[in-house]
């Protein structure tokens, strides 16, 4: 979409001018975070090609290789498994790369879902106003009083009760996306509604109404671009939270099954061996998760400051 076509440069368009890139170039924290994130994401996305082993290839697993420590930890180590192996003899590094991919996938899809619902509700509520507005926002308020993780947990639990076991394991990834997404939409809806209320009163929207554009056209092509800035910040910060939600659910044992392990599943599996000394099985996936979320949060923080120059 052409930014120049909108009557007033949107927050997003304004941000992408030189100030934005300047602030990025001159923020070492943001740069490092972006590089780390890029590395982790690349390792995850291309895990099929990059990973030294295929953790799902049961034929290649040997119990003789189980609990190999990482290479810098004791004589028993094996360079074929740089970060060691788990109880099944699976290479931990490969497991982490595949696991990160699943974690990222769930997180991104969940936020995409929450964004879609949240933006739609927020635009409609803010633009329509009146009873529609109060009903939708009331719903958001009620839901916001519950912690997102609890909502996700309950939604997942209900779906678990409704679906047959075998089928459930197969679609668990989408169940998680739904559960986490539905737990996080109200924030987006509230932000979009707030901005929409402001934009609705501006002259350019009046003008668009006068020339007879339909409501949906005005909402999508005129108001939406102008509210995207704050939404982007919230989406970034919520992406980190969504990844944590997934990891938490999987850790609690109500998330992804061991046949389709995310970082959270790996940590849960490893947790059983913490006391017997095989710390690496849980610590390395844990570090990966922390680094991933930390770099997303750092970028989100920086993005918020960059879009809000008043805070500088």
């Amino acid at each position, binding site marked *: 979409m052409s930014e120049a076509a909108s009557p007033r440069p949107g927050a997003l368009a304004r941000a992408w001018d030189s100030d934005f890139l300047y602030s990025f170039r001159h923020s070492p924290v943001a740069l490092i975070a972006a590089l780390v994130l890029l590395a982790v994401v690349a390792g995850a996305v291309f895990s099929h090609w990059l990973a030294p082993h295929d953790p799902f290839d049961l034929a290649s697993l040997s119990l003789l290789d189980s609990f190999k420590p990482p290479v810098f930890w004791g004589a028993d180590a094996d360079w074929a498994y740089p970060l060691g192996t788990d109880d099944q003899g699976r290479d931990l590094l490969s497991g982490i790369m595949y696991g990160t991919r699943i974690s990222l996938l769930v997180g991104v899809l969940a936020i995409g879902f929450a964004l879609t619902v949240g933006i739609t509700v927020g635009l409609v509520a803010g633009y329509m106003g009146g009873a529609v507005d109060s009903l939708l926002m009331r719903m958001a308020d*009620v839901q916001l009083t*519950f912690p997102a993780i*609890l909502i996700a*947990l*309950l939604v997942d639990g209900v779906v678990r009760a409704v679906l047959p076991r075998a089928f459930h394991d197969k679609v668990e990834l989408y169940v998680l996306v739904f559960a986490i997404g539905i737990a996080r939409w109200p924030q987006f809806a509230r932000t979009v509604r707030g901005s929409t209320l402001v934009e609705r009163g501006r002259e350019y929207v009046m003008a668009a109404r006068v020339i007879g554009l339909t409501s949906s056209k005005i909402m999508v092509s005129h108001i939406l671009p102008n509210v995207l800035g704050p939404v982007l910040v919230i989406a970034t910060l919520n992406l980190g939270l969504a990844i944590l939600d997934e990891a938490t659910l999987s850790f609690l044992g109500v998330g992804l099954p061991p046949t389709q392990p995310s970082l959270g599943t790996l940590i849960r599996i490893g*947790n059983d061996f*913490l006391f017997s000394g095989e710390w690496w099985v849980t610590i390395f996936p844990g570090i990966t998760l*922390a680094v991933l*979320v930390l770099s997303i949060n750092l970028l989100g923080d920086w993005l918020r400051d960059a879009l809000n120059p008043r805070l500088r």
Partner: protein
Amino acid sequence: MFAFIISRLLQAIPVLLVVGFISYAMFAFVGDPVSIMLGQDFTEAQRVQLVHQLGLDQPFFVQYAHYMWATLHGEFGISYRLARPVSDLILERLPATIELALTAAVLALLIGVPMGVYTGIRRNGVLARAFMIFSLVGVSLPTFLIGILLILVFAVVLGWLPSFGRGDVVHFSHWSTGFLTISGLRSLVLPAITLGMFQMTLIMRLVRSEMMEVLRSDYVKFARARGLSERVINFGHALKNTLVPVITIVGLQIGGLLGFSIVTETVFQWPGMGLLLVQSIGVADIPVMSAYLMLIALVFVGINLIVDLLYYAVDPRLRVDRRALTGAR
């Protein structure tokens, strides 16, 4: 004041009704309670009797009314998994969760607020930057990972503190407390830190950004121009204004502790409601789930009320009704 409380309570009723409706819908439609409770072998007569007993043969809204009525009396049905009344199960576990959440909340507030004030005032100091990095790590580390790391260091490697359970407890009729025994207190340390960490960093970041916002305001500038001391400006003028938004969010966050206690309790095998819920979700024990939902809703209504009252105490603008008559023009 009294009218204020009443109106807040009235506003809470629809919320409770809606949550009750959802939890009832879960109870009634998810996972067919009848077949679960009857098990494998049953006669048609037994089934009909159970359906009648559970009131499932009545119109939906009658069932809903019954359910709400029973809920009001603390009856939440029978757990499928443990075959015991849900209310008993919850009562047994409630003290553990409340003591844990309370300790974590106090910890989060006592450390989070001063850190936030400090970093808000000395924005560019070395210590303030260190706090900020610490807080960002705190927000990014999932609760369960913090718990695992603490266990690894303080229980497995150093062997200083217990890694699971609640230690010895003392019973007072329905209440059991771990506050009064050494082993109870020792057991509380790691779970409380784990649970409080996220809230603490969140409170710190919130207080910091609010402080910075307020310190830029005209009235703080004017207070400087009046020659007031930095101490009075920072703590009298700035911090008090910071409190208004902080109270709201902190209130909600303290409520969020109950949600996160699910995770902490699982990591530390803490015998509270969170652990009960996780175990119940794993086997789709719907009565426990719906009872938990209702309970959390009640807690939140209570917290919201307290938040509103604190708000009322801090911000005179909400007290207009009392003074309006004395002649604001």
